[in-house]
């Protein structure tokens, strides 16, 4: 048994253990009962009756790790919930050096409360930190948020008092936090390590005390094929960092902090061990029109419908272990978004957010011949279920190729390899051989995706065909910014699509590749039902058939010039709208927004009314706009050796709107609570491995 850690099991496992140990006792072998562990009355009962053998005997308990499926497991958990005396599955406990007792780690619980209005989400995340030790600690927690989250508010609750944090330039915030920490003040710091990875530090938590941190953000939901999708990420997938890269995200074993030498590091628990903290989640949806269906492919949920177009969704408490992203999908009446235009007037200007739908009568436009390039991630993190799903999707794409198409296959792990020297015609024989090559792919090694992207974009183009690059990956890589920059630089007339495979994929990378590649994203592997993957594949392939509308631009009737993002509007694909957010510096909102572009080479226009009644108001829009501008500026940083020149502008926008960014951070200091002594022991809150990802092939151990 690893020193200081135990894995507690369920009642069934305990019964098995009792039987095994009873058997081993009968055979004359002893079992060790660790001191001061709360194992529940069932096991205490066994111990009291000497069923574990004499003191000093060693006990092994089998753990039961919840997975993404299993109503049967939910039923078991429901039965267990009535037995409060039983230990929870896989709970991690720790011991400070020299301490006698083991205790749960500092992060007790995360509570998520969200409010969705049409397609704008306002979310509050409360993290409850508690010091169970006999000395002061600093808690550090690296955690995910949606990659497009505009993190706008930060509260630190110390006892009965609540302090609102201030957003400052990152270096300054860090300096203030470290000085407050050194002087013994209770303080907290929130920094952005990636647009979808944040680090929370809480200093000088005294023994037995609790400090709550509340973070608030806004973002817009995705909408595709008539379905809205709300995602709350729960764990960060372990990243691969190319050799020599020190600005990556290190994935190390719990207790091996510092071993990756990366600037950002996440400690992972070896399954079946999971962290002691759990998540509660409640989302209230005001969809603007009746919700026809609602479901979560990732978790068990409880649904209430207080009104026809208002729904409250809660995470089932029995499915609360944060080891995979929470995904909620719902469909509303009508094919289009109820109100395509959101507006808001603020002191800093007038803002709008616009959903541009493809015209319905254009789905059947014939597609030009394509040069399809499939890029399959076969790195170690894809081992198991992820690569099986990815191979299935790639095979489905190959089978849908038309005789006029050509294809090229690239596989990458520690290096990149290709099926053929160059693209091949999509004949039956070529496709059959390609299917066999894909089927034989296995996962292992690093994630040198840059080589694969260069291989996909750099070879000479066939002028008779439209090149489409489809990348199938979990995105577990530390140099994600470099990859997005590479697509920005090398795209040319091609299009790049990203297909995320896994339960906690790197959406920042996938969405970034699609945005830089003027393509779209799809996700698979979240559902317990593989037929959902096939439906997602069908929709994905319809999109990559051809863009419905190209060369989009916006014109406003009334209201003046707008600063809109993305500044280069992506092509419009079947079933998937494009989102644009804009700001007008002076005065009035436009009366009409016109989207102009080309369909089949011919000019086309879509007009959206901005009359009251045709729009809805949301005060999140200034932050959503600022976040979109920052995302575009990030892309310039990634794409250019001179990208650092836009860093001051990112900082200015983030500070003006009070947002966390790569160059700004939240700091809060309670100058009335000064503790004695130095800042105490730093405790990192470990992360759970994402469900379906193998620890052995992705995490660096000492």
């Amino acid at each position, binding site marked *: 048994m690893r020193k200081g850690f135990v894995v507690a099991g369920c009642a069934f496992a305990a019964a098995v253990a009792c039987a095994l140990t009873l058997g081993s006792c009968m055979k004359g072998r002893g079992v060790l009962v660790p001191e001061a562990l709360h194992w529940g009355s069932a096991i205490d009962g066994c111990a009291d009756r000497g069923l574990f053998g004499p003191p000093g005997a060693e006990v092994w308990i089998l753990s039961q790790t919840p997975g993404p499926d299993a109503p049967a497991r939910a039923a078991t958990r429901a039965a267990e919930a009535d037995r409060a005396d039983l230990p929870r599955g896989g709970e991690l406990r720790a011991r400070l050096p020299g301490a006698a007792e083991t205790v749960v780690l500092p992060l007790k619980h995360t509570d998520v409360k969200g409010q969705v209005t049409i397609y704008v989400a306002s979310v509050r995340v409360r993290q409850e930190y508690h010091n169970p030790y006999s000395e002061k600690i600093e808690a550090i927690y690296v955690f995910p948020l949606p990659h497009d989250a505009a993190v706008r508010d930060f509260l630190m609750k110390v006892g009965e008092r609540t302090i609102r944090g*201030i957003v400052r330039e990152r270096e*300054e915030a860090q300096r203030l936090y470290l*000085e407050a920490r050194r002087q013994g003040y209770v303080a907290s710091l929130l920094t952005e390590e990636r647009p979808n990875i944040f680090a929370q530090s809480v200093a000088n938590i005294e023994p037995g005390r609790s400090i709550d941190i509340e973070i608030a953000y806004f973002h817009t939901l995705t909408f595709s094929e008539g379905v809205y999708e709300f995602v709350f990420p729960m764990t960060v997938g372990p990243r691969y960092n190319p050799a020599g890269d020190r600005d990556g995200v290190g994935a190390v074993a719990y207790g091996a902090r510092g071993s990756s030498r990366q600037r950002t590091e996440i400690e992972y628990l070896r399954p079946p061990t999971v962290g002691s903290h759990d998540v509660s989640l409640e989302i209230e949806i005001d969809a603007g029109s009746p919700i026809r269906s609602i479901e979560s492919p990732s978790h068990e949920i409880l649904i209430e419908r207080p009104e026809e177009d208002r729904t409250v969704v809660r995470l089932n408490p029995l499915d609360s272990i944060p080891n995979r992203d929470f995904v909620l999908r719902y469909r509303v009446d009508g094919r289009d978004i109820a109100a395509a235009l959101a507006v808001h007037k603020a002191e800093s200007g007038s803002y709008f957010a616009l959903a541009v739908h493809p015209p319905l009568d254009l789905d059947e436009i014939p597609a030009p011949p394509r040069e399809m390039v499939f890029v399959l991630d076969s790195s170690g993190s894809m081992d198991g279920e992820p690569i099986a799903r990815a191979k299935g999707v790639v095979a489905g794409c190959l089978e849908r190729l038309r005789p006029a198409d050509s294809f090229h296959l690239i596989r990458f792990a520690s290096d990149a390899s290709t099926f053929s020297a160059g693209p091949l015609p999509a004949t039956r024989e070529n496709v059959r051989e390609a299917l066999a090559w894909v089927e034989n792919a296995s996962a292992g090694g690093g994630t040198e995706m840059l080589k694969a992207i260069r291989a996909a974009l750099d070879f000479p183009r066939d002028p008779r065909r439209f090149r489409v690059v489809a990348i199938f990956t979990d995105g577990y890589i530390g140099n994600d910014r470099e990859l997005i920059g590479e697509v920005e630089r090398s795209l040319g007339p091609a299009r790049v699509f990203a297909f995320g495979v896994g339960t906690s994929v790197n959406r920042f990378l996938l969405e970034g590749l699609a945005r830089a590649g003027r393509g779209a994203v799809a996700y698979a592997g979240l559902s317990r039902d593989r037929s959902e993957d096939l439906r997602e594949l069908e929709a994905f392939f319809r999109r990559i058939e051809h863009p419905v509308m190209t060369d989009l631009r916006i014109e406003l009737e009334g209201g003046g010039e707008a600063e809109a993002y993305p500044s280069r509007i992506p092509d419009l694909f079947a079933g998937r709208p494009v989102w644009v957010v804009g700001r007008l510096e002076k005065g009035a909102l436009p009366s009409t927004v016109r989207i102009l572009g080309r369909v089949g080479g011919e000019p086309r226009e879509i007009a959206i009314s901005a009359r009251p009644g045709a729009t809805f108001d949301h005060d999140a829009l200034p932050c959503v706009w600022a976040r979109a501008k920052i995302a575009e500026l990030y892309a310039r940083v990634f794409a250019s050796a001179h990208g650092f020149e836009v860093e001051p502008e990112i900082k200015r926008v983030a500070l003006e709107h009070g947002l966390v960014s790569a160059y700004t951070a939240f*700091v809060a200091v*309670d*100058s009335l609570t000064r503790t004695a002594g130095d800042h105490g022991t730093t405790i990192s809150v470990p992360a759970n491995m994402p469900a379906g990802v193998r620890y052995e092939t992705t995490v660096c151990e000492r």
Partner: protein
Amino acid sequence: MRKMLARGALLFVLAAVSARETGSAGGIRFRALDVFVDAGAEALAAYQVEISAESDGHEAMSGTEPKIVGVEGGEPEAYASPPYYDPAALQGGRIVLAAFTTADAPPRGRMRVARIHMAEPEGTEVRCSTRLVVAAAPGGSRIEAAVELAPTGGAR
């Protein structure tokens, strides 16, 4: 007199606090200032105040000006939650705090509506000034009120 104060008169509070009271080391000291609004007989349903701070001879030097590192709520239940601050104003070297209440009976008289936590250069005299931008009664009508800053009691 109240009218003069309500029309945006500046109150200068000498805020030189000794190192003993706040504790300091390493060039930065931390302390708190309370923000009081006196609405007299009127019910205070909303307020907005502007606060700026400067220390002697250091404001021109990068990184050594006084900084606000936290904003806390006040004493009446109606203003217990931390007020919001204007991030754009903060870039101009001042902080604008605002809060409102929908309580049936907003508080009256003199009350502590907020507390600001400061990080200041050690060994400097820091001057804070405050201005009442607006105070309002239920219904939104403007009312006359006075605002002042005072150091909070020392760290525990």
